[in-house]
């Protein structure tokens, strides 16, 4: 169950997208999101889809992996589509029964929304699939560094993210261990109603919390022993640097955005 979570999973590779600077990739993702939601016609959306498919092919990420990351989102996609179908009441009605009214505008928006969400997930997953967590947090730290001037603890936030990512596998392992230990003592976690199942998780969650605090305390000590004293005067072994690839990538991305805007104006 827990092992299905793919968010934040890095898929090592050597494609052009893998080699791009993480900062540029984050900005490109932001631009991509704007592009998707700015597109208000079929043609505009097609440009968005084309961009998604192109980057996906360039990244050489296996399609199976991508489908796996889409799977947990399916209920959300369906839910959004139904909401759009039911609550948009303007336009020509296809179908009317009591309070239900499905209109052509409703269908259009629902389809648009579904495509947008799918593209969104594929696009943002590409970011995490092609960027190592360290590069990602590093890039976030750099991108947010102007906020240091208004006393936002940017370095500390990035450090927290790194540690959180580092401890995900450790905590999963620990959860497995605790669950086995509780099962060995006769705990029943599989049967019963949803409420019973949720209740059965309490004896797993409490030891997990206690263990996390212990991890945190020891880790803090170990970090102190290794001269950690905040972000001040810190250097990095791996420097982020931009190359010609990043320039091409940015141009490519801006062209698509421009395409969407032009289509919006023309159509």
């Amino acid at each position: 169950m827990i092992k299905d979570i793919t968010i934040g999973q890095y898929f090592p590779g050597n494609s052009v997208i893998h080699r791009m600077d993480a900062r540029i990739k984050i900005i490109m993702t932001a631009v991509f999101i704007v592009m998707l939601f700015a597109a208000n016609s079929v043609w505009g959306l097609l440009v968005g889809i084309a961009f998604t498919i192109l980057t996906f092919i360039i990244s050489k990420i296996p399609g199976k992996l991508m489908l796996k990351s889409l799977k947990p989102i399916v209920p959300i996609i369906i839910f959004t589509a139904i909401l759009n179908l039911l609550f948009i009441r303007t336009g020509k009605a296809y179908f009317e029964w009591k309070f239900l009214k499905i209109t052509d505008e409703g269908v259009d928006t629902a389809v648009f929304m579904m495509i947008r969400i799918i593209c969104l997930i594929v696009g943002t997953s590409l970011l995490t699939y092609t960027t190592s967590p360290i590069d990602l947090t590093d890039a976030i730290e750099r991108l947010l560094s102007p906020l240091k001037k208004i006393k936002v603890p940017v370095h500390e936030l990035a450090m927290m993210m790194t540690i959180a990512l580092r401890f995900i596998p450790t905590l999963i392992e620990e959860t497995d261990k605790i669950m086995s230990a509780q099962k060995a003592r006769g705990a029943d976690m599989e049967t019963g109603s949803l409420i019973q199942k949720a209740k059965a998780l309490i004896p797993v969650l409490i030891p997990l919390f206690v263990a996390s605090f212990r991890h945190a305390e020891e880790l803090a000590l170990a970090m102190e022993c290794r001269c950690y004293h905040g972000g001040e005067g810190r250097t990095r072994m791996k420097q982020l640097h931009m190359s010609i690839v990043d320039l091409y990538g940015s141009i490519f991305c801006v062209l698509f955005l421009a395409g969407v805007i032009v289509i919006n104006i023309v159509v």
Partner: protein
Amino acid sequence: MSSFIEIKDLHFSYVNDLEDPPVKTEVLKGINLNIEKGEFVAVLGHNGSGKSTLAKCINAINLPESGAVYVNGMDTLDENNLLPIREKVGMVFQNPDNQIVATIVEEDVAFALENMGVEPNEIRRRVDEALKTVGMYEYRLHAPHKLSGGQKQRVAIAGIIAMKPDCILLDEPTAMLDPHGRDEVMKTVKMLNEQGVTIVLITHYMEEAAQAQRVVVIDGGEVIMDNVPKKIFSNVETMKNLGLDVPQVTELCWELKKAGYDISTEIIHEDECVKKLYEMLK
């Protein structure tokens, strides 16, 4: 000339201020200890004897309540000395999972150097060197959670030796490892000592302590024995009364001596014992 680490009449207490009035537990009750550069010292003592607390006093994690600790002449009570002391004295803990910070081995080894503000190229060089020293270079791009316990602990040691410390404190580094992992770690520790690094090893395994040049036994917050391993372990009865073991071979010799055989109890290594028994049986 003064010693590398000087501990003078060190007292330390933990205060539990959740209780009212706060409960104070005195853990260290007047420790006097000098450790020279390049020594390999094993610290023994049963649980709660204060050995881990003592180690944390040396690298200024715990500060003395009274008395003083000097590392290379620097007083641990002076806040300006904090980082220089921690650069000189690295510490490795029991649980390898709780001391690895990064998601990639080499990033973790670089952590201390990044904190110290070393130049990126120099970090790269020292990280590679440290990983080669502990024999983990080919694993440099792996995720730490996929390594074995012994490998993780060696990565943790690499993270410390990348700082190029003069001394490494190891707080039961092998307690959570299997025999093979224990062997890996001990080999690394001995090799570092041969390269001139001062080692302070806190352990529960007498076979490990027997490999040190000097053994310090702590009980009830005081140093009660401080000698070469042979002399310490030959007092089998005293050790047992303290709740401590002696190496198996020493115990064997002791039992033989009790049974009336002429054998010294100053035998702490297996091959020594084998040789002696061979001579006796000849």
